[in-house]
């Protein structure tokens, strides 16, 4: 029986966890001798106070929607995909390979090719850990961590040995063709006659991210496969008795998860840098964990949490620019969110559950309790 009403489960618990994370973050800012209120103001101004700010906030949010959805889908099957970072790196590689070697006539076709490349490469990188977990019982958390490092080594190797143009010093690929630039919010606004900044930031990939969120919702709650994934996550043995094949579900779930993480590469590699860089993921794979936890693994929650983290990221960059607070403050906030909404979930939940239970007993006293009978 659920102890708490649904609204408390969905809204109250995450809000309290978030509040705790915010209070501690404020204390951290105080401790390093800065003013949390002024810092917050600066962040709000920098992240959502201008078209440019919004552009970057949504650009980062796009990354986090993809990685957040990736972690969330895996969570539903009770799989912890910690390898979003590596899968996103490979996704970026897929984008670069798709765009460097085939002369696509127009960005729309290029975008489809890039998205396919990203998803396929990301999914492929998730396949081996998934297969090993399903068939050989290797712990997926450890294998996906290892695959993050292998991806990074592979990327360094490929960039230095093959993709780097001759005579170039820094390890990055050649630039993609100019006509493959994705339309950005700024270019759309300029087209409508509104003056905006020239920065490339949020681009058409944001819409793909939103569409992916919808697709994940449909998959999870409106299809047979989604039902099987959730059933498997609730109880593996029950799922087995119901004729659900655990190997199949594990592999398919991880393929979807890896594909989603890989899609992030479209945003960073095709949309922003327009070439493959060494560190284009910038830890977004790990932020996906915070986003999925905060969003309670629901696509709507993931999108909201991703935009919040996009805000934190862009706001944090502004803070680092104008104050002596380093960008790493965001990493601290991210850690606190993971800690309170993930690991210390029970700390918030237990007292709340007790409270609701007490309130319910007071409202509707059950069958009267008899005093314990004296022992004979």
């Amino acid at each position, binding site marked *: 029986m659920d102890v708490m009403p649904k609204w408390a489960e969905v809204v109250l618990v995450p809000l309290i966890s978030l509040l705790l994370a915010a209070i501690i973050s404020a204390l951290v800012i105080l401790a390093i001798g800065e003013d949390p209120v002024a810092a917050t103001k600066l962040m709000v101004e920098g992240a959502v106070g201008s078209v440019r700010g919004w552009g970057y906030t949504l650009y980062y949010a796009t990354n986090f929607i993809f990685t957040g959805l990736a972690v969330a889908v895996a969570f539903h099957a009770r799989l*912890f995909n910690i390898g979003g970072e590596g899968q996103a790196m490979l996704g970026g590689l897929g984008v670069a390979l798709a765009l460097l070697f085939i002369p696509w006539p127009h960005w729309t076709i290029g975008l489809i090719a890039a998205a396919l490349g990203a998803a396929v490469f990301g999914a492929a990188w998730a396949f081996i850990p998934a297969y090993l977990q399903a068939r050989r019982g*290797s712990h997926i958390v450890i294998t996906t*961590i*290892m695959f993050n490092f292998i991806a990074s080594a*592979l990327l360094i190797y490929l960039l230095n040995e093959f993709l780097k143009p001759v005579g170039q010093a820094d390890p990055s690929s050649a630039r993609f063709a100019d006509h493959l630039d994705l339309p950005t919010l700024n270019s759309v606004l300029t087209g409508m006659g509104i003056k905006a900044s020239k920065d490339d930031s949020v681009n058409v990939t944001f819409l793909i991210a939103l569409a992916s969120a919808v697709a994940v919702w449909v998959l999870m709650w409106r299809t047979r496969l989604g039902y099987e994934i959730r059933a498997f996550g609730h109880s593996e043995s029950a799922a087995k008795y119901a004729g659900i094949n655990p190997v199949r579900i594990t592999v398919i779930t991880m393929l979807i998860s890896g594909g989603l993480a890989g899609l992030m590469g479209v945003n960073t590699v095709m949309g922003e840098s327009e070439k493959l860089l060494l560190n284009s993921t910038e830890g977004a794979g*790990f932020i996906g964990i915070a986003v999925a936890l905060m969003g309670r693994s629901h696509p709507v929650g993931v999108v909201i949490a991703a935009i919040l983290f996009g805000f934190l990221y862009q706001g944090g960059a502004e803070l680092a620019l104008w104050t002596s607070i*380093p960008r790493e403050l965001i990493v601290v906030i991210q850690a606190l969110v*993971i*800690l309170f909404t*993930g690991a210390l979930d029970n700390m918030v939940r237990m007292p709340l559950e007790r409270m609701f239970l007490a309130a319910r007993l007071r409202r509707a006293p059950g069958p009267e309790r008899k005093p314990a009978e004296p022992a004979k």
Partner: protein
Amino acid sequence: MDYTTLIQLLDSTVRFATPLLLACLAGLFSERAGIFDIGLEGKMLAAAFFTAAVASLTGSAWIGLMGGIAASLVLAGIHGVASITFRGNQLISGVAINALAAGMTVLIAQDWFRQGGRTPPLAGNARFEGITLPGAEALADVPVIGPLYADLISGHSVLVYIAFLAVPLTWWVLFRTRFGLRLRAVGENPAAVDTAGVSVVGLRYAAVMICGVLCGIAGAYLSTALQAGFVKDMSAGRGFIALAALIFAKWRPWYALWATLLFGLFGALETRPDVIQAVIGLKVPGPLLGGLPYVMTVVILAGFVGKAIPPRAGGEPYVKER
């Protein structure tokens, strides 16, 4: 490859292996007690910073070490509260601890020293310098044994010797004491330990704290012996390599020594591509060598080369039956 190069290579193998070994033994205690710990990395990083920071403020590496261990213990305490007391997800807690350490170290470093997230360079007593073992100079000229003793065995910082002594000590504690027996039991079957009237919670906290101390020494080694000062993200994935070594070692102390020495050798070879080329006549790119420990761990995990069976109750919070 001549003898001098070999000694040099083995010498840097020892240097690379030391932090891995300490962190690996740290993980061994924790995981043998049934607490997964992917936060080794974060604890090492925090310890590396606080050791360097305290050492640079007090001028003493030993006081610095205390500071580093204290910082690591704080994070270990958070992990304990989250995963033992509140029965949270141990893996998620580990991820949080890694991020917390990555962020806080730079934040505090910037606040205290204002040098772009690093500590001032350490020198003199603020570092653990290499110590010359007795007779090293006298023996140095003896062929074969001389360089082996003077250059490979002697001349490391005290933390290296602590790390190597920690191996037999860990073996003895885990396999020859009552505490060790109970600790291993709590990782296999906590209910049985509970029935015997021993506190599961107490044992697990003890294991997590030992893990914290060892990670603290590992981190201290990074910033005061291997390098002279803290720089951002200086643990550079070593906590995860240690985790890989732990699986490679199948959660056993002596195997942990060999596994970390092997991974240390890879690290040493990565810095000497000329040696590899001379020995096998093939140019192996550095990044691929750097990725090798991870690939090997996956192969081991896949069960192709012997099966790695983790402690049975690992990762599961213990709930007493009512």
